[in-house]
């Protein structure tokens, strides 16, 4: 096979005969040798992009959009981390500061993390990996992107006209009655974007059930598919509850109907239950797809079957189910009963079990492998380490007696950033690099990419590790000013944030650079298994000229030391 570091020159290798374009699409005639027709160059017009129903183009549209929102959310973080370098208020008024951290949370969670892997990599790869020509409902897929954009741009517009200051959790009665900011507009923006998430999840579920190629039975699917399927279950079952909850808050604010207003006998704790019923499973929407990416990368770069494939698959489903049962661990000090607290505590602790299985299994996959430390593997290994820390600190929080002290402090902030940034974002970056050649037909510069991965890792730890210490010391979150004795740790964190911020600019830069100047990629530059690597880089619009027939398990590397599954 081709050398991953070299460019491919012969365009005729491993391409299948091009099918005719579907009616209504203009086929651009190009010189035959260098540039075969693929999903990118088949039509360059605006209309062909904005009205596309090709899941791959939709994935690219999402890639551009979420990068835009990531920059906005990141800018908010840079702003308040700068402010936090001193204990006093220097740069902003408190109201502005409060709006900054709220927008950081709202944008990063709803407009970056939740869509990121499923909408970019999931949309692009799910049909390819199962051997299908597209998602089950291509037009709904496009609709989901438009809904996402409408919601996202509404949120940005809200920021520009004044913003919202409730925190991303919108607790009542502050959000429903007391805040003077644009709560309703933000709630509406999130509501609209929720439908985008539901449609993505719906598409993935139906595609996995009904569009698998012949021979691809469930236990032959890549683990990427399993984890996206599990995340999609959460997307469709959890998101509607958030939708109705913020709708009730919006109604309360907009129409004056009192639902969470204690003066009418409403219950602000009910809001918390309804809110967290979605928002806890939401964190599994954010991490499960990342798990899928890590499984793929570890397998490919150790050239081994994944250790305990079935256990990893079932662990994903287990996490999705258990994830719906633990929301009360966000409410241990809210006034809910101690016994409810205990139930939520034990269930939250038990989620550690399927997560631990995955970590052990990924590590074991390395055994007797043939490892090469390309950028995707660096991100994957970094993920395992940081997710382990993040996940274990989750156990601290599941323990009632500790959570009383650290709830609503920087310990929580550190915990979830270890999982979300050290976990989900590193998984996203790893996946983006791994599948970049497939998506764009270009190779990224490996040297710069490795450097960036290391810089991200270092910057990340310097930013968030001190926050564990700050949290246990007692620094509450969402604080504009703080006692001066905590300045040193805050400065460390802000310094790390500046490194992290710069580090994120590197991939943005060199990935764009590679589109024009990167060496062209062959169909399978990593020599990996998986149907997506059997089609050209980039693929044609319809993926497969003929429906593949699958005869092998996933990760059937001929030299895999691991044979069969653990049973």
């Amino acid at each position: 096979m081709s050398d991953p570091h070299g460019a491919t020159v012969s365009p005729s290798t491993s391409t299948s005969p091009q099918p005719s374009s579907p009616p209504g699409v203009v086929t651009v005639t190009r010189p035959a040798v260098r540039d075969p027709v693929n999903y990118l160059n088949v039509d360059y017009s605006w209309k062909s992009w904005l009205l596309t129903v090709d899941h791959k183009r939709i994935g690219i549209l999402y890639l551009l959009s979420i990068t835009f929102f990531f920059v906005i959310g990141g800018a908010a973080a840079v702003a308040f981390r700068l402010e936090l370098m001193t204990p006093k208020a220097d740069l902003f008024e408190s109201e502005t500061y409060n709006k900054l951290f709220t927008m950081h949370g709202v944008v990063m969670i709803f407009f970056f993390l939740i869509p990121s892997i499923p909408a970019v990599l999931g949309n692009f790869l799910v049909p390819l990996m199962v051997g299908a020509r597209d998602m089950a409902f291509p037009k709904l897929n496009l609709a989901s992107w438009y809904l996402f954009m409408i919601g996202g741009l509404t949120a940005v517009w809200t920021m520009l006209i004044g913003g919202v200051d409730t925190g991303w959790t919108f607790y009542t009665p502050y959000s429903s009655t007391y805040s003077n900011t644009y709560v309703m507009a933000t709630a509406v923006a999130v509501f609209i974007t929720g439908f985008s998430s539901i449609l993505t999840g719906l598409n993935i579920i139906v595609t996995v059930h009904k569009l698998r190629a012949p021979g691809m039975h469930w236990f032959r699917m890549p683990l990427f598919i399993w984890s996206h399927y599990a995340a999609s279950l959460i997307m469709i079952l959890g998101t509607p509850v958030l939708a109705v909850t913020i709708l009730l808050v919006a109604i309360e604010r907009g129409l004056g109907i009192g639902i969470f207003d204690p003066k009418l006998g409403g219950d602000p704790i009910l809001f918390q239950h309804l809110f967290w019923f979605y928002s806890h499973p939401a964190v599994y929407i954010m991490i499960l797809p990342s798990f899928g990416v890590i499984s793929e990368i570890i397998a490919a770069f150790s050239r081994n079957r994944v250790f305990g494939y079935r256990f990893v698959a079932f662990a994903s489903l287990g996490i999705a189910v258990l994830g719906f049962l633990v929301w009360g661990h966000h409410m241990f000090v809210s006034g809910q009963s101690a016994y409810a607290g205990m139930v939520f505590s034990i269930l939250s602790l038990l989620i550690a079990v399927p997560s631990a299985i995955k970590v052990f299994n990924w590590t074991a996959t390395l055994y007797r492998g043939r490892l090469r430390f390309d950028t995707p593997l660096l991100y994957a290994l970094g993920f395992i380490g940081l997710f382990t820390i993040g996940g274990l600190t989750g156990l601290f929080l599941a323990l009632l007696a500790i959570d009383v002290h650290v709830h609503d402090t920087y310990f929580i902030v550190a915990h979830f950033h270890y999982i979300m940034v050290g976990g989900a974002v590193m998984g996203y970056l790893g996946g983006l690099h791994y599948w970049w050649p497939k998506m764009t037909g270009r190779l990224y510069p490996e040297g710069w990419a490795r450097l960036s991965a290391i810089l991200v890792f270092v910057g990340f730890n310097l930013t968030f590790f001190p926050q564990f210490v700050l949290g246990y010391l007692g620094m509450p979150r969402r604080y504009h000013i703080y006692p001066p004795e905590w300045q040193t740790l805050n400065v460390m964190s802000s310094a790390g944030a500046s490194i992290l911020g710069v580090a994120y600019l590197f991939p943005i830069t060199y990935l764009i650079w590679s589109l024009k100047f990167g060496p062209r990629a062959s169909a399978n530059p990593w020599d990996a298994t998986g149907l997506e690597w059997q089609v050209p880089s980039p693929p044609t619009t319809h993926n497969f000229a003929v429906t593949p027939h699958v005869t092998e398990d996933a990760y059937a590397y001929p030299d895999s030391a691991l044979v069969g599954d653990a049973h």
Partner: protein
Amino acid sequence: MPTQTAPLSATPTDGAESDEPVAHHFDTLQQQQEAVTLGMWVFLATEIMFFGGAFATYTVYRREHSAAFHAASRELDLVLGGVNTLVLLTSSLTMAFAVAAAGARKKGLTVLMLAATMVLGAAFLGIKGVEYHHKYEHHLLPAFGLPFEWHDHAQAGGAKLFFSLYLGMTGLHALHMVIGIALMGIFAVRVWRSVDVGHRRQGTEVLGLYWHFVDVVWIYLFPLLYLIDRS
């Protein structure tokens, strides 16, 4: 390496019955139909969770404020609510007829049944409008800053909560009906213009699933809001 089987098919397969065309990404008509049906069921699952959140809210508050909810519920018009229930059930019947007609490839009958369903749906909304108007006249609509009056000052908060939830939940339901009627109208036009109504059979079925679901939500709402607190 994966082997290759039959070439992709973008045209209808067996010609015995002229079925709807198969989209390019499906291999067979059956695959397409199963996918579409599964898709609608998954969507209905999301709707169950959506209304479920509202039902949960109602249930919690009904326990907290049982006396006020009892009293407030008696203000709802049992006759109008009952008539509406019959209207909606009948509309589900006409919808079922529409599906059967489409399956039997009777275009005229299909469009007629769809129209009947829309009329009944509109009637439902009309009666609902009358109910809302009554509440508005009696100062029982806690919205838009309208005056709210409840005879028993002690229960006022609970009563206001009841009417808030009544308005919110029936309003959401009505919104779903409006969307359903609108979609049905667009769809009926397509059926009328179609060359072979058999091509629209699955669409009718899927629309039917949605309509029946909206009906079922009402079957839960009606007893919960109108009936069970009246003792």
